[in-house]
């Protein structure tokens, strides 16, 4: 049987390997490479302690990404509900452990990695929605009660994450879910109604839901100079670092704000600042451009899928990834409050690196198996 006209998933492994989205792989390596350079600089020109470990994680993650990519998407289709409920269970476990144990806890130590169930959940929610919308028709999407289950799929993990409390992740799950609803064809009016509802909820959330440190972050965001040495310190110093970079930057290893430790969290949440301080506007725009290509690649893969699950999953994960990028970069540039979100593929940290690469593995799986037929 000629492989190239095959409609099912039983292609040979070499065929699949050739059909891995190598352009996307190249982009991932380029972005991760920038991350390694930034971490090398963050340590004052040393692979130790961050860059070397990040490279190790990346290698492990990339191998995992390829494995995920080569597994037929129908297996992922079948694994949706176990993944979703497993993630939910893990969230409940950390919640219970947190109450029993040591206050706010967001992760489970698995020995080799500290697993954050909320990270698992971000992918699982997208998978679950993709699975649910896989069999939906346009008419289904216009029926409001058809959307009750997706609402539950989104809000169940959100409420658990809110309890941790982790407002940033909660909002990201909601936004990714909203994105899924949008691409699945929900009525535009639903989003208008949602926006109105959010506007109504904000005052209620302010007084009854948000913790004081969360309120403080919002207040500081609105006026960072009011408290330059306290809560506004991060934003102020980050803007100074970015601005002092100018067009061409201060030069590799020459970023004074980060090298002299004025910039906090420079290896994690504020890594973009370090990069743009040293490489300037040109370096910053290059990174944004690379991210833009990744998004475009994701959209392109999605529109070429022949099954709904693959479409929704690949685009949902692309949205997920782009949300990380937007929130992190907007945060370090002072456009939104500091929420504590890493820059995927670049920030130092195992969980976010692995989550991103697992996501890309699934996107590539959708791409390689674009014509897989999925039973309902």
């Amino acid at each position, binding site marked *: 049987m000629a492989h190239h006209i095959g409609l099912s998933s039983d292609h040979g492994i070499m065929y699949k390997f050739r059909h891995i989205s190598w352009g996307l792989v190249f982009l991932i390596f380029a972005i991760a490479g920038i991350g390694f350079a930034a971490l090398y600089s963050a340590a004052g020109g040393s692979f130790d302690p961050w860059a070397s470990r990040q490279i190790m994680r990346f290698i492990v993650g990339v191998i995992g990404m390829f494995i995920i990519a080569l597994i037929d998407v129908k297996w992922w289709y079948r694994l949706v509900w176990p993944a979703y409920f497993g993630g939910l269970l893990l969230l409940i476990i950390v919640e219970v452990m947190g109450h029993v144990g040591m206050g706010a806890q967001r992760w489970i130590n698995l020995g080799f990695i500290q697993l954050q169930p909320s990270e698992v959940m971000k992918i699982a929610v997208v998978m679950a929605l993709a699975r649910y919308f896989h*069999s*939906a*028709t*346009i008419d289904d999407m216009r029926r409001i009660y058809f959307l009750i289950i997706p609402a539950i799929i989104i809000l169940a993990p959100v409420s658990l994450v809110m309890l941790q409390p982790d407002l940033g992740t909660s909002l990201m799950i909601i936004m990714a879910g909203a*994105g899924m609803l*949008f*691409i*699945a*064809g929900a009525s535009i009016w639903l989003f208008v109604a949602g926006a109105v509802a959010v506007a109504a909820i904000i005052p209620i959330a302010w007084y009854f839901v948000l913790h004081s440190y969360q309120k403080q972050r919002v207040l500081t965001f609105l006026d960072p100079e009011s408290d330059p040495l306290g809560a506004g310190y991060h934003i102020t*110093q980050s*803007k*100074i*670092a*970015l*601005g*002092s*970079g*100018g*067009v061409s930057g201060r030069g590799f290893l020459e970023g*004074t*704000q980060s090298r*002299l*430790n*004025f910039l906090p969290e420079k290896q994690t949440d504020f890594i973009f600042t370090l990069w*743009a301080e040293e490489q*300037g*506007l040109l370096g*910053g*725009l290059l990174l*944004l451009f690379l*991210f*833009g290509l990744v*998004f*475009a690649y994701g*959209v392109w893969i*999605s*529109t070429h899928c*022949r*099954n*709904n699950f693959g*479409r929704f999953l690949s*685009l949902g994960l*692309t*949205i997920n990834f*782009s949300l990380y990028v*937007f929130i992190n*970069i*907007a945060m370090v*540039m002072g*456009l939104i409050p500091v929420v504590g979100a890493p820059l995927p593929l670049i920030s130092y940290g195992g969980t976010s690196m692995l989550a991103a690469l697992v996501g890309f593995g699934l996107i590539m799986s959708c791409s390689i198996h674009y014509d897989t037929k999925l039973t309902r």
Partner: protein
Amino acid sequence: MLGGRDNEKLYTRRAIVMGGLQMGLLGVLGTRLAWLQIAQGHRYRTLSDKNRINMKMLAPSRGMIVDRYGVPLAVNNQNFRVLLVPEQVENIEQALRALQNYVDITERDIADVLKEAKRSSKFVPIEVKDDLNWKDVATIEVNMPDLPGVFTDSGERRSYPFAEATAHIVGYVGAVNKSEIDADPVLTLPGFKIGKTGIEKKYDEEMRGEKGTAQVEVNVVGREVRQLEVNESTPGKRIVLSLDGELQRYTQHRLSQERSASAVVMDAQTGAVYVLASSPAFDPNLFISGMPFDIWEELRADPAHPLINKAVAGQYPPASTFKMIVGLAGMRAGLVKPSRTSYCNGKFTLGRDTFHCWKKQGHGRVNFDGALAGSCDVYFYELAQELGIEKIAQEARLFGLGEKLDFDLSEERPGLVPDKKWKLGYNGQKWQLGETIVTAIGQGSLLATPLQLAVMTARMANGGYAVKPWITYDLAQNYNKAQDWEKIDVSSAHLKAVRQAMNLVVNNEDGTAFRSRIKDPAMAFAGKTGTGQVQRITMAQRLAGVKNEDLAWQKRHHALFVGYAPVGNPRYVCSVVVEHGGGGSATAAPIAKELMYEVQKRDPRTKGVEEKIHVEEAKE
């Protein structure tokens, strides 16, 4: 697939909208980045530099003070210290114990360092011990490999080689008080010292020098990472005094044989001060190293006031040394003529009051020469009675009494020349004739400092030029001879007559200072003794024949002498005041003799750097 092509078309449309939304958001981020880095770039670059660059002040080296021959009176010694950087040692106490093998470190020092280490950042060096000698430093340097985190450095520390001898002139430096902080930022440097008294205070700004700066890059906790740019400090200026250091030391030593005394030797022509001594004194080096409390208490409580420069701040009744002034006023009024005599029987009666002459049996009939040489009080009582206080006071002021002389030391006091107006202002009462009588012999309210008495004598000796005393360069450039000074409105003949009488005081066998004369005619000096009453002698004491020596020290008379030398061509003048020293002829005149002899022998006027006395730029 459900929904068919409609479904697919809707999906593609929405996916493209989503992609467009993502690109739009990326555009927002890119725009924001450009705005921060281009539009606001300059502002943020400045803020970044402000973050990381600290300006560190470098202390300037303080200018030296030297005498007229260039002998140092105030210098900066190297002060070697050993310091320890806490972050470079594992255990501070162990490091200090290791250091104990090489230098003497007490348990107290260790405790202090440990306390300090808790307070400050780990990278800030802590001083373990200062004032180390060179041997200690060398030992530590050699053993540096065994002493991690330990290093030595050297700062500067003021030192006064002449110690007590120049304490009152040179003064001393001390820590900056809050009230002393001015626009000069060096004053805020930790450990910076400024002049507190004497020349150190008067010329503090000149000697201070100018700060240097070092731009250092610091990290967020303020630790220095590297130096970017250094502007070295400018050392302060060197101050040259007109003082003769050796003669000063000699005088100080001579005065220290008395309980409390002061003396001035100055140039009759130029006003240069060669000696300005006040005894007892203190060791200014103690103020630098830390004054022990018991010594401080002793200095403060001593009735001889060792902390006060009595040569400029001590105000005494000039006693009989004032008689020249009364004589000159008499000549100006035409009252003193060779034909004028008084008959002294030991007392003078004014109404119901009796004024005594120091010589109980009286001087007999005396003219002006005899009255001055024998210091007859009655002659001057009678003269003053005719003159009135105003004329006497005017004459006194012409010769520099009763006002400050713009001397370099701010401790200078004005003395007091009383007159009718002063009395009215002082207690609202009318001047009494009796007061004129006691003023005639330099008693009563009249007060003068030893410096003023020297100036008075200089103006008589130099032919009536209004010299003012100076010890540094302020006046030095302009005054090289008596004629450079303003001429006083006084007749040369009158001054000559007074000098002739002053010669008799010392060199005539009837003179009160005859025993203290210098026999070498080339060095002979003239002058006038004075014995200042501290307490009015009561009639009962007079009748009982109480002698001055029997009184408690603080009630005894002050002994004074003013003089000039050599007699023929007056060049040097001196004034000596021995507090509660007894009689002028017995106590003050012998000291004056020694000073007049030594100053002529050394002849500082012809030597040293006088003509060049000025501020020199220190060369370093």
